């Protein structure tokens, strides 16, 4: 992936990880967030740009990242959406 290229098809796992960490830690600078999510700094910046564009995250005056209400709701919606499908599957007892 070219470092200048914006994210066209974001990885849901990465987004969920970023949101989950921001939910738990409230506010983080980019370097700490990159370390916590296990992403490279460049990749995280791209994701944050994409998420900011979608109004999932915002930056304060110190350039710290925090989650918006929409971001928190989106995460809950995502979990609900997956559960809607996985929850319907009945797994037989295989022993």
């Amino acid at each position, binding site marked *: 992936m070219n470092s200048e290229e914006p994210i066209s098809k974001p*990885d849901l*796992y990465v987004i969920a*990880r970023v949101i989950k960490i921001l939910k738990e830690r409230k506010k983080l600078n980019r370097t700490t967030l990159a370390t916590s999510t296990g992403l490279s700094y460049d990749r995280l910046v791209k994701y944050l740009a994409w998420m900011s564009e979608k109004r999932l995250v915002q930056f304060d005056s110190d350039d710290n990242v925090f989650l918006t209400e929409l971001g928190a709701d989106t995460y809950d919606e995502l*979990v609900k959406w*997956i559960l809607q499908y996985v*929850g319907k*599957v009945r*797994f*037989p007892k*295989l022993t």
Partner: protein
Amino acid sequence: MEQQLSSKMEELLRALDQVKKYREIAASMIDIAIILSATTVAVLVLVISGNLWTIFNGVTTIPENHLPLSALVGNGSILVIIAGITGAILRVTLRVNAVKVGQWKSILNEGAPGAIKLLAELKWETIFKDIRSAKLGLSLYGFLKTFLIWVFGNVILFLYWDALVKGNIIHLSVNPIAIMIASLLLALALSNRDLRKRYEQVGHLDSLLWELRWFDSEFRRADFKT
């Protein structure tokens, strides 16, 4: 809600781990065939050697201790067959136990992101193929076990009936058809529970296949909008 998702995912992944184990039974069939072929060859070598001894030495006892040769060959064959069957079952058990399971646990501990990652990494076509292989493996293994008990029962009943006739304990000549029927009934009685268990497992795999096919098609069609 996140906890609910994790536990549902755990159920799914545990079921898939079990499928992996069952699939290994199907993959072990080649090993079983080799072990049983080797057992058959060993029994044949033993019987042919016994016959050659009789032809060349003209006696049916071992000179040093006057053991009847037929008893020696018979007991030797039983031991070889027991070793072969035990080896085959042991081989399957070891292969099944060696299957790596639960490798998803650390990822699932991440919560919802882990569940998303694991779902994204599932290769559905491979899973469906594995379930089909597992069904075949379980059925074959169930029948094979019954068949082996039958063969083993046949050999034992034949040898002991023969020994009783030769020792003048009973005066009915060996009846192969009666032996086959008796050993078949014995095999069915002994493996009844196992066969029923296999039947239920195959049924469960069938329903798992249908559930996952539904899930795959629904989830593939669905689109999450941010």
